[in-house]
């Protein structure tokens, strides 16, 4: 059996000061190269789950592991290094630093992780941008000159630079209209497959689910706050 790229087991989390658990998950794991669609409306603990998976917050109970390494077993700086080296992250929107060029935005993770920079090697950012179909005349432009659809494609390229083992995408298509959404999904899934990255994709849009190997319903998975 192969070790899971990302695994959450017996997870409990309660926001400080909250009366009840925000999140209670028994088991969720992604094998290398796995693609999982996590469906859920807003307000069902989605952001919390992603923060736990990315090791930005630590669970009150249970374990969250990236590549077999428990987040709780690492110090704060080591968690930042581990995340920088092995995880790509795409936000809903506003993924890019407006004051950097498109190319520098894609290279951003390499600044914080020498390990990832080594893996990426020279020319990785250009190769990834090439795949996005973004004309190379735009690569040197400031990121805020791009349209929303273009920005999300650049965000995908950034998440995938240096081929991280896991990519987490938090509703990346919610700001895109139909044709842009299709193009983005194709780019993201192809790129993940190419890099061998497992993809955890969160959305409330059930129409996107068919493209994924597995579909998980978050309200079903999370039994926190449910009447006993």
């Amino acid at each position: 059996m192969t070790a899971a790229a990302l695994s959450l087991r017996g997870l409990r989390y309660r926001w400080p000061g909250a009366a009840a658990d925000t999140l209670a998950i028994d088991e969720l794991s992604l094998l290398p190269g796995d693609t999982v669609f996590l469906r859920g409306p807003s307000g069902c603990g989605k952001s919390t789950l992603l923060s736990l998976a990315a090791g930005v917050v630590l669970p009150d109970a249970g374990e969250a592991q990236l590549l077999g390494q428990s987040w709780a077993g690492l110090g704060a700086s080591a968690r930042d290094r581990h995340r920088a080296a092995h995880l790509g992250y795409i936000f809903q929107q506003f993924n890019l630093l407006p004051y950097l060029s498109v190319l520098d935005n894609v290279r951003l993770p390499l600044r914080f992780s020498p390990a990832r920079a080594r893996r990426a090697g020279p020319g990785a950012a250009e190769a990834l941008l090439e795949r996005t179909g973004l004309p190379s005349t735009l690569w040197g432009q400031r990121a805020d000159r791009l349209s929303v659809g273009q920005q999300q494609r650049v965000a995908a390229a950034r998440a995938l630079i240096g081929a991280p083992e896991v990519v987490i995408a938090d509703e990346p298509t919610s700001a895109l209209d139909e044709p842009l959404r299709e193009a983005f999904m194709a780019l993201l899934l192809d790129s993940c497959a190419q890099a061998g990255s497992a993809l955890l994709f969160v959305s409330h849009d059930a129409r996107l689910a068919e493209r994924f190997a597995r579909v998980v319903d978050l309200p079903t998975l999370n039994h926190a706050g449910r009447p006993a």
Partner: protein
Amino acid sequence: MTALLSLATRSAWNRRFVLALVVLSIALSTLLLLGIERIRQDLRANFSQAVSGTDLIVGARTGPVQLLLYSVFRIGNATNNIRVSSIEAIARHRAVAWTVPLSLGDSHRGFAVLGTTGAYFQHFRYGQKQALVLAQGRAFGEMPAGLYEAVVGADVARRLGYTLGQRIVLAHGDGAMRENDHADKPFTVVGILAPTGTPVDRTVHISLPAIEALHIDWAAGTRLPGQTLSAEQAAAQDLTPRSVTAALVGLKSRAAVFSVQREVAAYRDEPLLGILPGVALDELWDVVGLGERGLQAMSALVAAVSLAGLVAVILAGLNERRRELAILRAVGAGPRQVLALLALEGLLVTAAGVLLGAAACWGAVALLGGWVQGQFGIVLRLLPPGSAEWQLMAAVLAGGLLASLLPGWRAYRLSLADGLSPRT
């Protein structure tokens, strides 16, 4: 670190319009700090350049600082005159090499008039024991032909456009009232001194008998009615001076300076005071030092205010940058790197302000130095920053770094609390 530095630079550049105001305010406070330091140093240099080679200054009994101020710097007035016979007695002392009597009180268009003797041009020294040099003409001549002759300092000649042969009218006292002009006894400029950077440049020199001639028909500070004497009539009178304001004394050996000083103080015929110029200057610095420290404290406060502005601006912008912080966290920046980023930004802004302020200070000295010299007689030197300047600039920088730890700390807390989902 270089990765963070380039990020901090570009992030700050992105908000340059707001930050430029902060840079400007830090630049102004740096200019203030450096400018005051420059003036402080140059003022001291100017003052200590003003007299050298004089072992004692003798005047009526008063405070040493006051005697120094009126005799050398033409600031303030003498409380009393001293008799010429007293100076003659001092001159007869075996340790005394020379004496130069000084008689002050009149003015010419804002410049002091000094009555003295030919010995002044021979013995007076300034700076590094430099003697006075006549740029044009000659010293005032002997009686009676040279009675109404004047030698003007370099600033007097330059500001008033005087050349040799110029006829000038001296004024009694500070020249505030026109009827106090000595218009009936005009003088002729016969010599113009080379610039010295000392009060000599702003002085009109005439002979002691000329001072007597000017005041022969005056008593108790006013013209005697019905006793007006013309210039020629005055010249025919006995113009032997009876009293002067002060005297410069040179000794044969500096070793005797304290014993001569004691003997001057113990002089029986009238109360006298002898001061060592260097010692009196130190006393002056003690007095001036209080004001200087006040000015320095004020400009330090101004610097603190502009650094508070820096903190306020960065803090105010932080809420809108929570998205930026979340992106940085997502690509692997730790909260400590976020703190470092904010601290670097503050440091960069402060450094830009300090550089701009320093440049402005040197620019101001270069541009306004001539004007300040003409207006206030202070020679401002265009020098590379000395240790005091470096210390001031380093202090502002350190203050900026320290102040930016505050927004840095706030960003650290925010990025810990927000993680990847900024609540904006």
